[in-house]
């Protein structure tokens, strides 16, 4: 793993991340845990006004995927 020196290094590393140990074995649960860490960071630090602006940072593909995740979470929480 290359040392992270810039914001772009961190962003690129996360985009290509497979696993902390084995590049041939994708750690899906681990990626969800990293996403959850980002969610916690945003929940605890971002101002309501800043949340209002998140739309402008996301591509159409990312928005579509976020809605898909939200639907899966909602379905899992529904009784029955």
């Amino acid at each position, binding site marked *: 793993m290359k040392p992270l020196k810039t914001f772009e290094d961190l962003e690129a590393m996360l985009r290509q991340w497979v696993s902390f*140990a*084995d*590049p041939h074995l994708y750690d899906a*649960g681990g990626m969800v845990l990293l996403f959850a860490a980002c969610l916690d960071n945003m929940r605890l630090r971002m101002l309501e006004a800043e949340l209002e602006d998140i739309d402008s940072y996301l591509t159409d593909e990312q928005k579509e995927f976020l809605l898909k995740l939200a639907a899966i979470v909602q379905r899992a929480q529904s009784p029955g």
Partner: protein
Amino acid sequence: MREDTTREPVRSTAARQREALESVCAGLRPGEPLPDQLEIVVVGSNNHPGNFVLRSGIDDAPIGLVTTPGKSAAIATDLTLETEIPKMFGRLPRGGDTLSGAFVEDIRAAGFDVLFAPTPHNPFHVRIVAKTHTFDAAGREALALAFDRIVRQR
């Protein structure tokens, strides 16, 4: 093949299991099929055939001498999340992680083979490859049935 059941983890010490498996691995050469009696593990629910869809860029990337695409797994050591997750992913087990296991014999009966594909980070790495079945919907269904759920972290 077995039904979707939850098994108790093997209770022997991780060190003893690791020692025993290292001797098994020492007798194996990269690219060789695993013996029938070995057990392998994957992280994920056993009853989700969709977990066996091949992932482009990872599951089709050559691992040393193993160039056939397939799904990655690891030779089981003690069937506990505390041992198997760090071995495969280099992190501690967390809530939501599920460990499933299968004997190589059952995977062969499902129409697949298991090749030894160690990596510098994971000497227990194996790859499940197509044999008489492919990773299409029917093949994934058969493969999922070969796995038992071992344990889920709460």
